[in-house]
Structure formats: structure tokens, C-alpha cells
């Protein structure tokens, strides 16, 4: 009796939580007078979106570029840094670790204004590289913490015996340690992807040219029409293009996501 009640309660809640996603997918395909899909069902909204603004291809490329650069950069910097913090002692070690963790204490939105000025000064205004560097910085506290712990969990004997055999520290890092910390790398990469793919405020502030917008800002601009009606079918198609990669990745890599959660990924 009690069990049936809790299962029906959970099912009702599950419907409530899944409904908006299902509705969005359905309405992106559904026909609507005046939209890209006038009647019936089909991909009309998506084809119309392909020609919106600078074109879906441009926005998608921008988003992919930023995500790839952010994920790669975060992995490289945090793997090298995590190795340094787990295996070496060096001048300024504690200070650097504290400074990195301090990024968590400083609200993200408040340092975007000076970053806007600073990036312009180093020639990275309106640049996807500049945006990716900012994302890497925001990911670093979690990524470095995660990678340091991953390296520390690998027995020292493993890389030390390799070095006795003549490997230098870099060779030991590449061929022995990196394969051993692969789960940590997947977790760090997943969080870096979700953050850079989805972020709205940073590109809104740091980019000022429609041709360099990533998807979230581009799809938002569909709602900012000064004349003419908003094409809601196309809007939901845009939402789907943003959401589907995240939903797929999350479903496949759920294990790694939860693992990051347990170890303090909480501040996204």
C-alpha cells in the first residue's frame, strides 16, 4: 500500500520533471502556421533556424570551438598542475593552491567586467580564444582539485619505478600516470564541456559580434526581435540543439558526473 503510494507519487513527479523537455522536443517538430513547419510534423523549424542570423552552422561551430578549446585547455592545465601538486614540492606551492581555490570564493559575474577590459588589452577582444581562457580559469579550482586527488590516489611506486628504469618525469607522467587517472580526466572534461557549452553571461559580455556568438546567446537573440512575431517553434528547435548533446553526454557519462559531485564539483 505504502509502496504503491510512493511509486505513484514518484511517477507523477517524473512526469512533471520530464514534461517540459518532451514538450520542447514535440513543439520543435510540430506544425504551426507562420513558422518553418506550417503543418504536420517535420524538421521545418530546424531548417529555418539554419538560416537564422549568421546561420546555425556559424553558431554551432562557435560553440564547438569554445567547448573543444575549453575542454582541451582545462585538461592540459589541470593534469600538469595536478601532477605538480601531487608529486612535487616547489616554491609558492601552497600560495598557488590557495589562489586557485579562491576563484570559488569570488562570484563569477563580478570579475567579467575587468576581464572584458583586460582581454581587450591583450588583443583578445571579441575572441573565442579569450572566452575559452576565461572558462578554463573558472573550471580550474574544481579541475585542479580533482586531478591532484586523482594523482595522489596512484601509488608512488608506479611512477618511481618507471623513473628508475630511465624515464624522466615527463615520460612517467605521459605513459604511466595519465592512463591511471583517466576517470578523473573524463570527469573534469565533462564538467568543462557542460560549463562552456551552456554558459550565457560570459559570451554575452565578452563577445560583441553576432558572427562570434555561441548557441545560447544566438538562440536568445531569437527572442529579441524589435518587430515581427517571435518564432517560438524555431526557438524550441534552438533549445533542443543546445540541450540534446548535454542530455546524451549526461546519460552516457552519468557515473563520472556523480563522481565529480562527490568530490566537490558543486560550484559550477
Amino acid at each position, binding site marked *: 500500500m505504502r509502496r504503491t503510494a510512493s511509486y505513484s*507519487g*514518484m511517477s507523477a*513527479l*517524473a512526469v512533471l*520533471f520530464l514534461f*517540459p*523537455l518532451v514538450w*520542447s522536443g514535440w*513543439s520543435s517538430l510540430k506544425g504551426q502556421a507562420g513558422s518553418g513547419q506550417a503543418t504536420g510534423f517535420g524538421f521545418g523549424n530546424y531548417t529555418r533556424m539554419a538560416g537564422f542570423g549568421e546561420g546555425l552552422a556559424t553558431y554551432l561551430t562557435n560553440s564547438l570551438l569554445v567547448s573543444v578549446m575549453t575542454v582541451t585547455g582545462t585538461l592540459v*592545465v*589541470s593534469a*600538469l*598542475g595536478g601532477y*605538480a601538486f601531487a608529486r*612535487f*614540492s*616547489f*616554491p*609558492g606551492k601552497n600560495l*598557488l593552491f590557495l*589562489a586557485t581555490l579562491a576563484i570559488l*570564493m*569570488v*562570484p*563569477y*559575474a*563580478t*570579475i567579467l*567586467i*575587468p*576581464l*572584458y*577590459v*583586460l582581454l581587450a588589452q591583450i588583443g583578445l577582444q571579441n575572441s573565442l580564444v579569450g572566452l575559452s*581562457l*576565461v572558462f*578554463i*580559469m573558472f573550471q580550474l579550482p574544481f579541475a585542479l582539485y580533482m586531478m591532484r586527488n586523482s594523482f595522489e590516489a596512484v601509488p608512488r611506486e608506479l611512477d618511481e619505478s618507471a623513473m*628508475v628504469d*630511465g624515464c*624522466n*618525469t615527463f615520460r612517467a607522467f605521459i605513459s604511466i600516470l595519465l592512463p591511471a587517472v583517466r576517470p578523473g580526466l573524463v570527469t573534469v572534461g565533462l564538467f568543462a564541456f557542460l560549463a562552456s557549452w*551552456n554558459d*550565457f553571461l560570459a559570451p554575452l*559580455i565578452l563577445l560583441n559580434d553576432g558572427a562570434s556568438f555561441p548557441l*545560447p546567446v544566438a*538562440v*536568445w537573440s531569437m*527572442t529579441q526581435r524589435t518587430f515581427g512575431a517571435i518564432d*517560438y*517553434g524555431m*526557438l524550441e528547435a534552438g*533549445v533542443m540543439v*543546445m*540541450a540534446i548533446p*548535454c542530455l546524451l553526454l*549526461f*546519460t552516457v557519462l552519468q557515473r563520472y558526473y556523480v563522481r565529480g*559531485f562527490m568530490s566537490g564539483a*558543486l560550484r559550477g
Partner: protein
Amino acid sequence: MTNLAPPRAGRDPVKVAARSAHARGRFRSRDYVGLLYAAPTAVIVGVLFIAPLALIGWMSLNKWPLLGPAHLNAPDNYVKIADDPLFVDSVLFTLKYTVIITVLLSAVALGLALLVQNRRPGIAFFRTAFFLPGAVGFAAAALLFYGMLNPEFGPLGFMDVKWIGTPNMALFSTIALVLWRFAGFNMLILLTGLQAIPVEVYEAARSDGANRWQIFTRITLPLLRPTIALMLILSVTGSLLAFDQFFIFTNGGPDNSTVSMVMVIYRNAFFRFDLGGAAALSVVLLVALVALNALQLRVLRGGNK
């Protein structure tokens, strides 16, 4: 431990570079190797975090237009904060929003976590279902709701409600959006805490004759305190920095009734072209949040011991 690897001349550029530094300091060559591996981290943190942090303080002391040269005008940017009625309103609104969201989100997340905490058939499906909105980006979620709550386009048109048409409804709809997007996320935080409570504790309580309510209030809640504190910190800081939900979903309206603090910063910088004023607001928000974070961390740590 550090003297195992005999350096091979010419094979390791890292070590060659380090050796020249060897003679000088109290650190051995291996220490400088570590520094090289940490160098990318140091550069990123230095250039993209420490430098902007210093710059924002300096900007807040200057009249700093979006284009054109800056000049010192301290403390004008700080003085005029109090004269900005939109900012004062946004502080009050953001605080109100933060209180409402934190209370509701915690309650919903706790309910969900308790519902799915035990392993039983099909539970993985329900956990995933509740969390799935959290995998979607927040901006995408706000845009999804923007379409879904449109009276003509959305499925709720029959209710004849202006979901973002009045100040109260706009706040209500935003709360629905945020609960939908973040309840599962907070549930997951609480689940990690719930699962850390040893089964023996529950068994002991049960054999002592405690009922469900007593177990919940005397065991689950106290042992969950550090996790709840963490969830509260994240909810409070996240809500104080609210931007996407109001910028995208309600666009600050109607009648500027849903303008958050970060939105005012953005408006000052990019609509009024007053970066100095935006920097001063940022510094105020930054100091307030760092203080709040420090306070909450202390509470959190107190709860751990």
C-alpha cells in the same frame, strides 16, 4: 623519495632548465621541475584571476567609459551607488528572491532525496528523471520556459494566465523554472549526504523503538547538517548572483520588477557605458559574497565536527 631518478643530461629539457637554477636556491632541481608543471596553472590564475581582481578595484576608483580614456574620480562611483534607485530596488528584489528560492528549493530537494534514497526496483530511473533538467544549460532552460509559458504558443494557454505579465506572476514563473532546473541537482547533493549515514545508526534507532518521524528529526536531519549547509551556501550564492533567469526569461519586467543585482551591473556597463560604476557595484557585491561565503564556510566546518 626524491632522489630516485638519475638525471640524464640532454634528455630532459625540464631538468636542464632546472639545473641552472639549482646552484642558487634552497630548492633542489626537482622542486623547479614541479614549478614548470605548475606554470600553466600559475599563468592562468595570475593573468585571468589575480589581475582582473586588482583591475576591478582600480576601475571602481575611476571614471571609466566603455570607450575612451579613464581618469581617477574616487570615490564618486561608490557614492552614487546609493543614488541609483534601480540598484537599491534590485538589492531588495534579489534578497527576496534568494530567501524564497532557498526555502522552496531546499524543501523540494529534501523531499525528492528522501523519496529516492533507498535502493529499490526502478529507482535509478526516477533519480535520473528528477536530475535530467539539471543536465540542460540554464540559459536553454530559461528559453524553453519562455516558449512553454507563452499563452499563445505554450500548452498552458487554456489557463488564461499571463505567466510573466505581472510582477507577482513573473516571480512565480521564475521560481517554477528554477525549481525545475535545480531541484534534482540539490537532490543529488543531499543524496550523497544521506548515503554517508551508516545503516547501523538507523538499525540501532529502530531497535530502540524509534518511529519514522523520530528517526528523521533525531538522526537524519542532524547527521545531514553539513550537507544541508553546503546546499544552502550554493543556493544562497547562486541566487544572489541570479542573472540568466531574469535577463532571458522575464527580461527584468514587467516594469523593472524583476531586475537582479547582476543585471544592474550589466546595464551600467553595456547600456550606460559606465564601466567604473559597474566595477564599483561589482566590488560591493564581491565583498558581500566573500564575507558571506567565509561565514557560511565557518558554519559548515562547525557542523562537520
